[in-house]
């Protein structure tokens, strides 16, 4: 059964017409599909069918180890958004970005296609100046209206600097990570496993933390 009804399909299709360049999606699942892997595969397939600019490659997490390593994918389901030349932007969604999270997914898709709101000069230069490896994990639930904002900010940072990678993580699908980071509220932002922030944070605040690390 299709995930998108006709109305949502049309809305998304309209949004995607504004895409600038092509975008490549790398989707990771496995032969015996995990809980949520099947639905997430349908999701990426349906999204890809709504715009010619979206190229979709489906990988087997077990068999295509090289690809998983290349994109730093360590769990499934995972959707990696790459640019038109299949360059890794460091933008990953772990889980199906449904509910409110469809907004951060479409936002990242548009940004990966080259349609980006200009950043303020001082912010842009602060992002460029980050010269260490940074991994941002944003825990979300799909019923959280605030979460897409936190995810979009993290993904934008990743797109602007190769040293930064950012993940959306659906808390409902990865209980061991929820346990590990003691997440009891979303959005929860974990930076390099060591720094934790609660709630949506402006890009300046994330940079403050990153710069001090």
């Amino acid at each position, binding site marked *: 059964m299709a*995930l*998108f009804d006709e109305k*949502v399909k049309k*809305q*998304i299709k309209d*949004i995607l017409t*504004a895409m600038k360049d092509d975008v490549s999606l790398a989707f990771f699942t496995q032969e015996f599909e995990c809980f949520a892997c099947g*639905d997430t595969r349908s999701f990426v397939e349906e999204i890809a069918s709504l715009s010619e600019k979206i190229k979709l490659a489906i990988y087997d997490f077990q068999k295509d180890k090289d690809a998983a390593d290349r994109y730093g994918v360590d769990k499934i389901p995972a959707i990696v958004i790459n640019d038109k030349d299949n360059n890794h932007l460091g933008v990953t969604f772990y889980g*199906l970005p*449904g*509910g*409110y999270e*469809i*907004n951060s997914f*479409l*936002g990242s898709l*548009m940004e990966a296609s080259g*349609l980006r709101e200009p950043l303020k000069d001082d912010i842009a230069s602060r992002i460029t100046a980050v010269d260490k490896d940074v991994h941002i994990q944003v825990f979300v*639930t*799909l*019923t*959280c*209206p*605030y*979460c*897409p904002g936190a995810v979009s900010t993290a993904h934008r940072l990743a797109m602007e600097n190769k040293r930064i990678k950012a993940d959306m993580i659906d*808390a*409902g699908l990865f209980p061991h990570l*929820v346990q590990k980071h*003691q*997440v*009891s*509220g*979303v959005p*929860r932002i974990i930076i390099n496993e060591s720094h934790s922030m*609660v*709630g949506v944070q402006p890009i300046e605040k994330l940079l403050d933390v990153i710069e001090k690390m």
Partner: protein
Amino acid sequence: MDFNLSAGMFDSELNFNPLVSDKTYDVMILGGGPAGLTAAVYCIRKGVSTGLIVKEIGGQVALTAGVENYMGYRYINGVELVQKFKEQVFQFGIDYDEGTAVQSIDAGDIKKVHFEDGRVFSAKALIIATGKSWRKLGVPGEEEFRGRGVAYCSTCDAPFFSGKNVVVVGGGNSGVEAAIDLARVAEGVTMVQFLEKLTGDTILIDKLSAFKNVRVIYESEVTSIDGRDSVESVSVKNRKTGVVDQIAAQGIFVEIGLIPNSGIVKGLLQLNQAGEIMVDCSCRTSVPGIFAAGDVTDVPFKQIIVAGGEGAKAALTACNYVLNR
């Protein structure tokens, strides 16, 4: 699977321009909820030069799951309604700023609006429609344990309290709704209500009564939230007897209503005890040329349709003021 597409996040060709500093607008509207957006439509249609300053488009409506009492729609989700409001504003060209907080306002013949980032904009008339924000408890432990047991959004965070014991503070509609969300997953829910009965709508209270794992403590207030790394217990004081009980809980959801976003006009406009801007029936405040509308004002009943109506009134009064000045 639902897909809650957001309000106009991707409208690449929205019909708006940045606000201009060296211009004096006829009317400057602060607020992007139903009151502010309605005011914008009325001002533009009256042909006065209009600026719109928005912190979060849609205000509380954008965070409301479903709306069933806004005429014309038997049911519409909050985000969709905001999108429709926004489209109605942006069919016209409008000078617009979104996301930056306003720091202060100077009254005087020409009003000045100072942004936190240093920008300043001028207008002959202002409409304050800055709405309300969720209120906090202000007790020890609340800040410390935020995100570690203290929560404000039951739809966001209820799943983390599956099989646990939680406290819900507040017995109005949002408190009762939170208790229902939580009762579905939690082991036990204790509601702490300040008054001697719940004040939520009957239809919701009936729904709540169907759950066997919910108890309500009346005439009580939370005095502290305690724990080591995360919330372990909540201290609740009976307002009559003064007796303090410790309730073992891993989570506490705060749903004690809203406070008006009137900080920027404190000391400038007359406020009531609740901090709401006092307005007359034409939305005039205590300062000539400054008007107010919607939830930030002392107008009774905070409803989308009321806020919209007040926004229209404030706009028409402001336009009259500008034309007859």
